[in-house]
């Protein structure tokens, strides 16, 4: 079946709501409006206003309420409309959801999923174009997933609900219109995945950067450089085995990250390669990240600020100089 990334997300939501009465969806405009990006469209009619629950503009309040509802025996899916607004409830995520199990000596589980859209590329300017996946990946006690494919957009939500930990699911509006075949394979939220086999360099990417990495690999192949593309998929805990296996094979790597370069998740990947595969490298690992600037509105400047296939191509070629 060929569906879009958006439809895959919706299908995942519908299945989760249908499968378990404890699951409910809460967030701003998830119901009557149908979701800002129309992801939850139709679900209000199907499941009613208790289980597809519109919340007022109060991100701290309803994320915290989601945590409480999880403690109270439900399995909430909280939608924070975009990552840009997720700084408002960050305290609840870091200081309650992430630590409660440990701090209570293992007594309390928080089986919660928080979904949010993330990333730039739609000319929404500085306050609506953040990529904070890397920030969240810094926090012990939560898991972070970044679906880049149709199968992951569909399947990661269910896996996240089954996980028993608070899981943050990052969705990429830049991918919402992409279409592809939905397979019947179950997805896990434990492993990175090689999306394209290659021998001469490894490109590590996640989320909306994955298709960019694949496009770059196509171009490189045309120029005779056979690059492998690893989709991280899970940003915490990192599956370094898959990354390192690829790097040890190719001996060269470029990390692509839509976050600002300094302190982005790409730095952690580089540091781990340094720590664990230093002697396997034929060249220093390179990074392609967001420029260190608030994203400007005009298209040419936004494009210049973000990772692009050409920049990835250039970075890979740079590994051979």
């Amino acid at each position, binding site marked *: 079946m060929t569906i879009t990334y958006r439809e895959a997300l919706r299908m995942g939501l519908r299945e989760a709501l249908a499968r378990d009465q404890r699951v409910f969806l809460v967030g701003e*405009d998830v119901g009557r409006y149908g979701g800002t990006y129309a992801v939850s469209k139709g679900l209000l009619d199907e499941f009613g206003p208790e289980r597809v629950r519109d919340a007022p503009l109060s991100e701290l309040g309803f994320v915290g309420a989601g945590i409480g509802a999880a403690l109270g025996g439900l399995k909430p899916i909280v939608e924070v409309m975009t990552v840009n607004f997720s700084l408002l409830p960050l305290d609840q995520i870091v200081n309650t959801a992430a630590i409660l199990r440990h701090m209570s000596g293992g007594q309390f589980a928080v089986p919660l999923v928080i979904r949010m859209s993330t990333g730039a590329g739609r000319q929404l*300017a500085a306050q*609506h174009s953040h990529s904070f996946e890397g920030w969240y990946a810094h926090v012990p006690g939560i898991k972070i997933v970044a679906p880049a494919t149709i199968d992951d957009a569909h399947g990661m939500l269910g896996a996240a609900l089954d996980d028993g930990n608070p899981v943050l699911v990052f969705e990429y509006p830049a991918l919402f219109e992409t279409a592809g075949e939905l397979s019947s394979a179950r997805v896990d939220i434990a492993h990175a995945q090689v999306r394209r086999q290659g021998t001469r360099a490894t490109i590590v990417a996640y989320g909306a950067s994955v298709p960019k990495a694949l496009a770059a690999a196509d171009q490189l192949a045309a120029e005779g450089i056979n690059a492998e593309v690893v989709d991280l998929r899970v940003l915490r805990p990192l599956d370094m085995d898959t990354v390192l296996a690829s790097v040890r094979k190719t001996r060269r790597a470029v990390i692509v990250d839509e976050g600002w370069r300094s302190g982005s998740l790409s730095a952690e990947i580089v540091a781990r390669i340094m720590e664990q595969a230093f002697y396997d490298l034929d060249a220093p690992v390179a990074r392609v990240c967001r420029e260190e600037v608030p994203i400007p509105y005009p298209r040419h400047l936004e494009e210049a600020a973000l990772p692009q296939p050409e920049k990835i191509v250039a970075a890979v070629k740079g590994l051979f100089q």
Partner: protein
Amino acid sequence: MSHVAAPPPSGPVPFARENSLKLLKDMLRIRRMEEKCAELYGAGRIRGFLHLYIGEEAVATGAMHALARGDNVVATYREHGHALLKGVPMDRIMAEMFGKKEGCSRGRGGSMHLFDAAARFYGGNAIVGGGLPLAVGLGLAAKMRGEERLTACFFGEGAMAEGAFHESMNLAALWKLPVAFFCENNLYAMGTAIERSESQTDLCTKAASYGVEAFPVDGMDVVAAYEGAKRARAKALADGPVFVEFRTYRFRAHSMFDPELYRDKAEVEQWKTRGPIHTFTARLKAQGDLTEERFLELDAQVEAEVGRAVAFAEAAGWEPVEDLTRDVYAP
């Protein structure tokens, strides 16, 4: 909270004729500018999010006429009208919408982020509630510096559910700051009707609980909006913060992406009978302050201004990519 519109604003307009025409013309300037923006959005000249103020023009028009040049204004992503009437030139607004470097934010902000230091227009904020604490700080600065300067802060009724509203009201009241909280209650926050967003839909009761003077104003009536804002300004400069609920309605979708599943067409149509421009026009005509010719003349002037603004924006240039990281830090 009833979503049913009250009867259209009517009765005599108590202003000198020239003032009335200025108000009318300013409402038209917002309306025509935004109609043009919608058209340009369709044509792909304007991108990103675009939130139109159409239907709500009486609020910004009445309020800005009540403010002094030296007053500060903080607004939201639905701020084209506020920027224009606070004194940001239309051509620079239009260039900003295009993303051109002659834009009022150098093209970097677009529709949601209009700024103008000279006009004391502090934006343009795409984080709901994000401007409220700023307004408190601007008010604090004016007070500590001994300036006679109001800070007017515009926000939607949806923003009142945010913690930022609560903290800002409390701080402004505690510190007795010259801040006017201008709530534009258009009954919806995206698709969320006020009764699903506020447990207390009487917004003035809510605001008064901070020990702040609060009153409602008919936001479809530019006369009431002007008088309400004027009263608020005097009060805020004398005694500290004031809250005004401008009861209004947006005629268009929330943004250009909104399928409007959440409200009836009939409700929209009913509110349109209270449209701030045509009702004000009718009242001025009724009292002999306006003829159809004069109206058409004003409208033509406005259309010409819009035309010039678009031409300016079209002719303006793009910021060079080399300047991408300029202004991230002080030089």
